[in-house]
């Protein structure tokens, strides 16, 4: 396992100059790379190294750093290794390269990210509304979107639940644990 991970890292770092690799325990390797290189590295992983299974495309909202982090998770059936490819795009006006010609299923994740985070994918196939029908508000999964205020304003609420609280507050009260700093900042 360790040798395989090593060779993978070697291969990638020789082919792509501006990539930083990070080893994890178990069968996981992370790569951090600029957003222009993403299609190239994914193509390389799929065609040259046999990582032909796209497990997931995830998005993380780094509000403080004003960036979105997009993570592509690919898997090889021969190496039995997950590779996480991280990249960052700026939060204002985020544009990303579309990879659904590499994996057809990437289309689903990209459409979801487009609706939930507002990331534009260039040349996305079938860009009409997907999960959110008739949605008019801002992209709801962004961290600066206040769901509670939105819900209170949009949906009529039955009286008698004014004491309803964020579930995190309840947990904190019960266990006495501390909120992390970034969460405190955006605490409702």
């Amino acid at each position, binding site marked *: 396992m360790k040798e395989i991970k090593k060779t993978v890292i070697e291969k990638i770092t020789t082919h792509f100059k501006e990539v930083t690799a990070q080893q994890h325990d178990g069968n996981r390797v992370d790569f951090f790379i600029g957003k222009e290189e993403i299609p190239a590295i994914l193509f390389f992983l799929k065609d040259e190294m046999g990582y032909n299974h796209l497990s997931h495309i995830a998005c993380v909202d780094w509000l403080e750093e004003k960036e979105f982090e997009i993570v592509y998770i690919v898997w090889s059936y021969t190496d039995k290794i997950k590779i996480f490819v991280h990249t960052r795009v700026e939060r204002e006006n985020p544009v990303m390269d579309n990879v659904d010609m590499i994996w057809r299923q990437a289309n689903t994740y990209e459409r979801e990210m487009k609706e939930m985070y507002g990331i534009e994918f260039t040349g996305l196939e079938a860009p009409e509304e997907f999960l959110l029908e008739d949605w008019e508000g801002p992209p709801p999964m962004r961290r600066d979107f206040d769901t509670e205020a939105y*819900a*209170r304003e*949009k*949906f009529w609420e*039955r009286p008698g*639940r004014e004491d309803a609280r964020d579930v995190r507050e309840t947990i904190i009260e019960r266990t006495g644990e501390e909120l992390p700093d970034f969460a405190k900042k955006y605490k409702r």
Partner: protein
Amino acid sequence: MINDKNSQKIVDIIQNFARQHSLWVLAYGTGCGAIELPPTMTSRYDAERLGVRGAATPRQADVLLITGYLTTKTLKRVIRVYEQMQDPKYVIGFGSCTINGGMYWDSYNTIKALDRYMPVDIYINGCMPRPEAVLSGFAKLQKLIQAGKADGAKKYKENLEWYRANQKNVIPNWRMPEYNW
């Protein structure tokens, strides 16, 4: 003779008896509550002995059973299904999500009170209500029907504008056939 008051009363009693003991349920399995229905229908609790029976399509159904939270997207379909049902029709809201939003009270796409959008005859409380609670809900509905008080459809017809305004408030692109009963 039909207009005669007493004979109309007898007809009403027979009709209400039939309606009461033959409830064809269209279970709109929106949320987690759908999983409570199989035990309700199968041999442990056996709702069929009360005349409760699954219906395949809204055209045949009497009771619309909404089993859990409703996003705006499913609410649209539920309203459509409700309007396709034939009068007399009843709605059972199932679980606390339909009553006050339940655990989804602060969700950006989940409605919090079903009765703002369609006439609910019976709410069954719980998260989720157990089959016993479901059966007691059906029994309560039967009592209402027997007394002739389960008139949700009539309420809907009379207050259609109010319901429509609420529905259109959460569903911006309103595109449905007219309801003109």
